């Protein structure tokens, strides 16, 4: 078990999904010398490997790719940029001195020192327990992502007659995928009065296949001792309490859950990074640095993205800043705190510096139509529709920021109409 790894790296990246791969390229472009990506899967590429549908890469590569194709491009670029990749290896712990503890099936127990670390561990799906759906606990209840893995990577079907709780993008994509596999999809049930998926997916995955989307409804009971036999579906009131009097029964053998994603922050909490409850990820500065100097975060571990292209963009910046810090170069520290105002659920990063052009990512709390987004009093932008499911990405010129030295910069979305 002679291992080819070095004891010290300039930048170590935890997670080899699109975020980790793009961070590595960003670090390389900024001149980092020794770059290592660690991923626990046998193959890097992250979740993209199971997303065999197309629609990836329109922004980043200017063409439409499938998930595995997008991943392959990132992997090839990383390899030709001499990025070391340690797969089938799990990062157990990171010390505040940036010493990483790793177990690897090939090389056993490893200890490495990094000058900078980029966290890119991705996210996981919320499960049944998180919403405490009443009923039995049969086989056939699973997250949409697990079903995606079964169908796309194992050639197995989760069942034959499928109901989907939650209108997240993975659920929508699986609705279409399972119809194409010859399954029946009874419908998508969403507790909110609006969908949680991208409009593109609503049209291409549900409407095109005449799959009904039931808003303001939920699964009130799961029937079946061994395998799912059916569901009680009920409309909910404003407090999301189901109304049993207006409920109906749906026969099915499978319930897929697409009820949200949660950043995978076990390592971050172990490191005691300051977290943002709104995103579920660490708080970061405009250089994507966390509360622990030298530790950066990007991709779904930072906040859940809906388009992988923006993951790559964000990650490549994280890699670049990590390389700079490793080389002892620091940008001026941030002096403007971003503050979520009216109808803003979250914003990343949490602070900014006026020394350069900045990219920020926002989500609204409630869907709104014909609205105006304002940042302080120097910036405003009109939007026809904003929904919680579509991340807003803005670039801000230094002029917008430099007047706010030492202040909170408040972001608001206001509108006359509720969508």
């Amino acid at each position: 078990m002679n291992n080819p790894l070095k004891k010290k790296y300039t930048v170590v990246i935890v997670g080899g999904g699109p975020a980790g791969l793009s961070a590595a390229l960003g670090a390389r472009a900024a001149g980092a010398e020794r770059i290592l990506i660690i991923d626990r899967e046998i193959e890097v590429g992250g979740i993209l490997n199971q997303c065999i549908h197309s629609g990836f890469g329109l922004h980043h590569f200017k063409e439409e790719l499938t998930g595995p194709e997008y991943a392959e491009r990132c992997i090839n670029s990383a390899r030709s940029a001499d990025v070391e990749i340690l797969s089938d290896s799990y990062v157990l712990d990171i010390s505040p001195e940036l010493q990483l503890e790793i177990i690897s099936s090939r090389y056993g127990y490893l200890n490495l020192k990094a000058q900078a670390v980029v966290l890119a561990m991705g996210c996981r799906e919320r499960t049944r327990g998180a919403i405490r759906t009443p009923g039995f606990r049969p086989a056939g209840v699973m997250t949409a992502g697990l079903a995606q893995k079964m169908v796309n990577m194992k050639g197995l079907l989760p069942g034959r007659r499928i109901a989907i709780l939650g209108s997240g993008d993975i659920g929508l994509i699986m609705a279409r995928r399972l119809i194409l596999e010859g399954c029946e999809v009874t419908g998508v049930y969403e507790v909110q009065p609006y969908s949680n998926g991208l409009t593109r997916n609503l049209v291409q995955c549900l409407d095109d296949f005449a799959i009904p989307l039931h808003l303001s409804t939920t699964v009130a009971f799961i029937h079946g001792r061994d395998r799912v036999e059916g569901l009680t579906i009920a409309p909910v009131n404003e407090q999301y309490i189901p109304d049993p009097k207006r409920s109906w029964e749906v026969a099915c053998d499978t319930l897929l859950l697409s009820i949200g994603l949660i950043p995978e922050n076990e390592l971050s909490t172990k490191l005691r990074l300051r977290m943002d409850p709104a995103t579920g990820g660490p708080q970061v500065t405009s250089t994507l640095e966390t509360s622990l100097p030298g530790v950066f975060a990007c991709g779904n571990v930072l906040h859940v993205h809906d388009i992988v292209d923006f993951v790559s963009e964000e990650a490549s910046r994280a890699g670049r800043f990590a390389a700079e810090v490793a080389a002892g170069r620091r940008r001026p520290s941030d002096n403007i705190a971003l503050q979520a105002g009216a109808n803003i659920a979250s914003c990343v990063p949490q602070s900014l510096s006026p020394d350069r052009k900045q990219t920020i990512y926002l989500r609204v709390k409630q869907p709104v139509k014909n609205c105006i987004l304002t940042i302080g009093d120097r910036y405003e932008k009109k939007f026809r529709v904003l929904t919680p499911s579509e991340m807003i990405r803005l670039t801000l010129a230094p002029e917008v920021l430099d007047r706010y030295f030492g202040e909170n910069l408040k972001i608001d979305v206001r509108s006359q109409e509720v969508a």
Partner: protein
Amino acid sequence: MYDVIIIGGGIVGCALARELSRYRLKLALVEKEVEVGFGTSKTNSGIIHAGHHSPANTFKGKFEWAGNQMWDDLARDLKFGFDRIGELLLALNPDDVKYLENLKKQGEDRGVTGLEIWAPPRIQKEEPNLSHTILQALHAPTAAVINPYEACFGLIECAQQNGAELFCGYLVSDIVKDGRNFTIQTPQQNFRGRIIINAAGVFADQIAALVGADNFKIVARKGEEYLLDRRLQGIVTRLIFPTPTANSKGVLIIPTVDGPIMVGPTADNIENREDLSTSFAGAHKIFESVRRYCPAISERDTITEFAGLRAIADTNDFVIGPTPIKGFYNVAGIQSPGLTAAPAIATYVTAMLQDDGLALEEKTDWEAEVDGPPHFAQKGKKERQAALMRDPAYGRIVCRCELVTEAEVRYAIRHGARTLDGVKFRVRAGMGRCQGGFCTTRIMDLLSETLGIPLTDISKRGPGSEVCRPRQERLPVGDQT
């Protein structure tokens, strides 16, 4: 011909099997589920009660304290999770204070050690996250937490290594008495035996009825439990009990032996003995109650929930003993504190069989210990390194939430796991916050590969609960024209 056949592989059946395996007997345990412990013994609070709870002059009272004292040795020999963390029973109302005093006396009368009443300053010092409105608390250091299914696995594995035979997935459908012997019928095969022990849990009255030994009835009393995210781990360090009601011990806060906090159970009598469903009402009740004494606990931290059925006999006590049908014994109505009591019940029943004339000749080569699962996550750095040197499969993490390695999943399968739940309850793979979202397919692969069965035959917990379907349903042979 078996000397003794035990029907039901819950904690009671497993404890009895191990106890009887000390002697030269031909012994079988017949269980309808795919694994032992998959009845009530898997779905409970996992508490070894301190010894003072159950009323005097009942089997419950007798065996609670006797059983409590037997678990240290069992845990050491069988390597399951066990920890004497102690218990605090809270007085929230002035009336409760009297109850604490009575309970303390009841415990002391039977020899329970260390009982102490704590005033608020002590409570706040020891458990700062409890509500500051608690009037008093009774501390019982003898209370423990246990991993109940690991205990079942350990007990049965020990019994098997000492010659007992285990038949899982065999549903007893009838029992016929012919002369002095019995024939137990299952769909797969018949078993002949001289002595039958009915330890069939919530179905024990139905099993007894097969031979006409049903002078009792069982009602199922459901309890729902909610397991919380590891974020809340450590919020209390002891078991927290409110003052109980007539039907149950109330909603407890349980620092489970594996770390996460669990809250529950409810107590509702139900008709259908297969009904393990959870409910909005149950969740509501549990979190409402718990918030009165630990305000920081919220339903938003739930990662999973489950329900279990207590087998309540109409005598409201354990039903243990011979029946008018000679050779047929009931060990039934084992409600709470049945888990606690099980080892004491096992020795009691063994002595009873001996008194009734069963010859018990001790084996000289009886082996008390088993190795137990190699919990990688609980090991220190040195041990982990050593494990990795022995077997590189320790370097492949299968379940990332609970840090379970491929080597452990292989261990589970070698030790009898045939299903996803079998793996999960043996080595915790799939038990963490993602609830199997990432590791299910990997575990399915390992099961399929090791057992040589197709992925489509892999189930959650036995036939009927298969996890997935083949892409193309194949036509039955001969139907292909």
